[in-house]
């Protein structure tokens, strides 16, 4: 006889909110089960805009091909022009036709024209994308950025006279280094987490939520020694449900169960794994109280993974007066950029999603009056080889080194390239395979992997300083920053 469960459901229905559960069972909609409840209580907006700042990291997982995100759109004879690019990539079918590029004029490059990937423009049924923000001075690129232990020339790369980042071209290691903000050794913490460690006592004294929130799980970037990020689901789950345990009602039986649930979490912590798991649940339940209500955003976000992640970020920023935190760091990620194959369509799709989602987020920040307070910046694994991998319809590219990274917001000195000069006297590399900026020991195997001229630390320090990290704390957060001449690439106003 298997009636006990049904009988139980009948008996226990009221006590447990079983109807809700049963619905969830039927539709498997644990995530979406409950209708979105928007709290429409009016928020006091007295503290809005008073010194709030947020950094939003958009991680392009897999290693976005920067060589196709920014392409020379000129015929200059002195630095790599479209022909150099085309010669390296068009035979295999990886070059973007010049006519499709979205032109940008770059003061730092003597006013020469460069072109953005065509997916970064307007989309029918969407928004105008990131390209338009260049012209408005809201979008900048930090160029030729990558992992470095200290500055390095090609000769130094070849003769090993300067330490290299450990395990170049390996995904995991390069992601760790980008997120850690150091490349000389393994780090248990990320640079976002360390910034938060330094600033939490002053800028998030109440600690209703941690200073850092990830909408893409646990990340090294978000982990400090004392800072552990909140990690929550994307906007498919209403903010008031992302950390809400189901099935607990007000009746005594339910409350007794809840009490036991809480008691059990507080004991048996001698085992370090039990301790870690219980501590994570503790912080989830603390934050759940702070997220009990929220207001929906105004702008329509694309219904993509990255769009939903950024929408959730926008909801939290909108809730800032309640959360009583002056500084916040967010992490979102779009994977799929490891385009060893099918890059032409794949990168266009991925980068298009990023462009649309980040633009929607920027527009929402304008609506919220936060566009000067919130700076969105890109990170990724590494760049990709100039020389394609494969050919024809499935052409892609392999793991490279330096890359170009977008930064946007009203606090950004947009409409220009920022970085440290390469061999050609500009911060944009010479695109010649086996040329002066190509990291290779062996001409026969040269693929066009550009040696970075500005380090992750320099890029990150520029952002962290804007965020409010004190000058004297820079070496605490970036232990290796002293190896580099400048700690400010200049892209923040």
């Amino acid at each position: 006889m298997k009636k006990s469960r049904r009988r139980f459901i009948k008996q226990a229905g009221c006590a447990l909110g079983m109807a809700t559960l049963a619905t969830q069972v039927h539709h498997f909609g644990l995530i979406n089960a409950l209708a979105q409840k928007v709290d429409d209580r009016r928020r006091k907006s007295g503290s809005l805009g008073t010194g709030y700042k947020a950094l939003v990291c958009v991680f392009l997982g897999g290693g976005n091909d920067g060589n196709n995100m920014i392409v020379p759109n000129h015929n200059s004879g002195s630095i790599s022009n479209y022909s150099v690019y085309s010669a390296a990539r068009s035979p295999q079918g990886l070059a973007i036709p010049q006519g499709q590029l979205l032109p940008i004029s770059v003061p730092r490059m003597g006013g020469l024209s460069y072109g953005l990937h065509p997916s970064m423009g307007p989309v029918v049924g969407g928004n105008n994308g990131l390209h338009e923000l260049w012209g408005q001075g809201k979008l900048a690129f930090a160029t030729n950025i990558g992992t470095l232990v200290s500055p390095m020339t090609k000769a130094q790369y070849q003769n090993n006279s300067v330490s290299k980042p450990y395990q170049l071209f390996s995904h995991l290691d390069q992601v760790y280094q980008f997120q850690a903000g150091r490349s000389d050794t393994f780090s248990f913490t990320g640079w976002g987490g360390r910034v938060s460690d330094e600033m939490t006592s002053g800028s998030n004294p109440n600690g209703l939520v941690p200073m850092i929130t990830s909408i893409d799980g646990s990340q090294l970037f978000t982990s400090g020694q004392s800072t552990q990020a909140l990690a929550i689901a994307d906007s498919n789950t209403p903010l008031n449900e992302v950390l809400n345990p189901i099935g607990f009602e007000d009746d005594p039986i339910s409350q007794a169960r809840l009490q036991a649930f809480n008691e059990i979490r507080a004991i048996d912590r001698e085992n370090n794994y039990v301790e870690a798991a219980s501590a994570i649940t503790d912080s989830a339940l603390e934050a759940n109280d702070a997220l009990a209500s929220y207001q929906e955003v105004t702008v329509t976000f694309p219904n993509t993974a990255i769009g939903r992640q950024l929408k959730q970020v926008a909801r939290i920023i909108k809730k800032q007066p309640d959360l009583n935190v002056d500084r916040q760091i967010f992490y979102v990620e779009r994977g799929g950029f490891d385009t060893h194959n099918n890059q032409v369509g794949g990168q266009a799709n991925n980068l298009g999603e990023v462009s649309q989602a980040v633009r929607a987020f920027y527009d929402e920040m304008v609506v919220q009056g936060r566009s000067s307070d919130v700076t969105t910046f890109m990170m990724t694994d590494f760049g990709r080889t100039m020389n394609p991998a494969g050919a024809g319809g499935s052409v892609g590219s392999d793991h490279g080194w330096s890359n170009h990274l977008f930064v946007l917001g009203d606090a950004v000195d947009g409409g220009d390239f920022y970085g440290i000069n390469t061999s050609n006297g500009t911060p944009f590399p010479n695109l010649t395979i086996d040329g002066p900026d190509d990291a290779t020991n062996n001409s026969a195997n040269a693929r066009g992997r550009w040696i970075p001229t500005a380090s992750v630390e320099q890029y990150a320090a520029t952002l962290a300083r804007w965020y409010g990290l004190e000058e004297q704390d820079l070496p605490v957060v970036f232990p290796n920053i002293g190896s580099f001449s400048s700690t400010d690439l200049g892209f923040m106003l």
Partner: protein
Amino acid sequence: MSGTTRSPITTCAAFLVLSLLVVQATAQIFPDPNSPSPVLIHAFDNVNRAMAAPGGSKTVEMPADKSAAFRIGDTARLFVKNVELMPGEGASAFRVYARDENKRIYRFPVIGIEEVAGKTPVYALTVKVRDEIGFWEQPSETGDVEIIVTWRGLSSNSLLFGLGTFGGLKPENPALETKEVQELASPEYVGYRWSGDRIRFLEQATFGPNRSLDHRIRRIGIRTWLAEQFDLPYPSSSNPYPNIPLKPNNIQTGCPEPRGTPEYNLCVRTHYTMYPVQTWFFKEAFYGEPQLRHRVAWALSQLWVTSAPTVRQSSHMFAYHKVLSDNAFGNYRTLMKEMTLNPAMGDYLDMARSTKFSPNENYAREILQLFSIGLFRMNQDGTLELDENDEPIPTYDQETVNNFTKVFTGWTFCNVGCPNSTLGAVNFKDPLVLNQNNHDVTEKTLLQYPNAVNPTIAAGMNGNTEIDLALDNIFYHPNLGPFVGRFLIQHLVTSDPTPAYIGRVAAAFNNNGSGVRGDMKAVIRAILLDPEARGDVKTDPNFGKLREPVQLLTNVYRQFGVTSADGSGQSDGYITPLSTYMSQNPFAAPTVFNYYPPNYVIPGTALLAPEFGLMNTGTSIARTNIGTFLSFAAIEVDNRNPPNYPQGTAIDLDEMTAVAAADPTAERLLDELDYKLMHDTMSASMRASILNAVLAVPVDAPDFRVRTALFLIASSSQYQIQR
């Protein structure tokens, strides 16, 4: 085993002999899996302080005077007793942890072990008084820290140890001399008596213990059970691999219009989604006899990763899974070859389109980094080999990747002339085939290591020959044993095994006892029979692993007789949404780096814990909610056409409900659940909390009592950490 004393001395002598023989024979078949718990010896003058002597002196003896305080960088000798070392077992089997007043945890490297002269069995552990983890700065020299010694997953007592000076810390467990192994209250055992170890073993070797497996282990022991499992046909005869035909890449071509009809949806689901793979997988996990092979194949699928939706068709994934399961008990070298030529892998990591004209580095890089040897040279015990500057030594560089890339050029799908070649579809069933014209025949330089096998490949060779030469070059690399060994230990037993454990498993990988390298049966046996894996209870605070979502689900389902929603038959195996809700979508890992990297460290700690890559604030609540779902709800029958879950999935709590109904105190219910889910390790305070909640439920609702208790256990960290 207590020898039953028969009072009449006149008992027939023959009977005595016979019974002794029986006792002895049983002992031989089923050795006690429990190791003794190490005891850290206290100072003569203070029972709360560890006896400690400066390291370095030639004579090893226990100091008769007061123990000293130490400075960071000193060496010190600590003294342990109550350990029994196997041949070859030494310093690397021990770890020494220190905890300061801020609860920060440090680990002091154990660099030597000596038997104290004349005092058997007391051992002097020589430790470097310096944290080797590196999460925190070195501990301050401002007074006492608490130290413990761990060995084989067991913790010693905790004693004070002076850093710089004495004082400043009160011992938490003053002068606790030994932690006794729990006496077990199951006198009715038949054979393999250690009930805690039985359940623990089944958690490691299967998708979850249940009564029938528990009984079987009790009867035949774990060694015989392993031998049985090695010989079972796979998959179960009632759940064969579905034979799904290859389809065109394009769904619109593969499934006839009109779209949206039940026929169309069924066609898409069958061919172009992982639905058939996932339901087949969970059915085998729920009901299959060959549990061990299924479990090891699942672990291997997280090593040699391919994933949907890049792998587009279920038939492609089945062909890939078959390579894993065919070789789970075979030889790792064969697995390497068959996986290298598996079309799903060839597509996933691009080898199937890499030619000498336009090579692709992806597979060459990842087979080295992820599937075989890793980035840095290791000793046999998995510790890093260091150069003269104490820096790790890379196993290869970009040039090596370029050379392996050349080896792997020229392979492609066998779309014509192979057994499964299908007009209009890419052949993802038969191994890739070589087109020598696309193969790079230049000379290659491969991995360099002492006594390297095939360190170079001469120019002008056939690609078929080269692939074997190159795979042998990888296969004989000294890293392979510890790399594969650690990975499988982490997936089956514990997240941060000692070097000694890894070394023993690597030794089995290197030589199965008959001179064969790469014998997976030997590796699995070594992992599951190791004293660090075995025993009724593990007390080392760093022992254990988070149950991955799939294991969390199958362990609960299996222990409570998983059935269809109405209880009349079997589940249809469709529980994917529950797993995905906890961020693990089976056969759809986000990238080739799996759901979590093997070296994942829990943020804010120095704890190595791969599965915690899926544990964060959001998913911790998801796990709680799944506890609620499993305990209080079921997957009801799906009435759509076609139904994704035509039978539904539920657990059967009738037996537990009867127990609860028969005992209003609920003590027996707690006994049963403690045994089934936590192998009798539930603490008294946890039990008390659960009892309070259970007793709040009216006695005439025993089913509700069971569900309340089940929820509180299943959602607890104490259960979610497999120990």
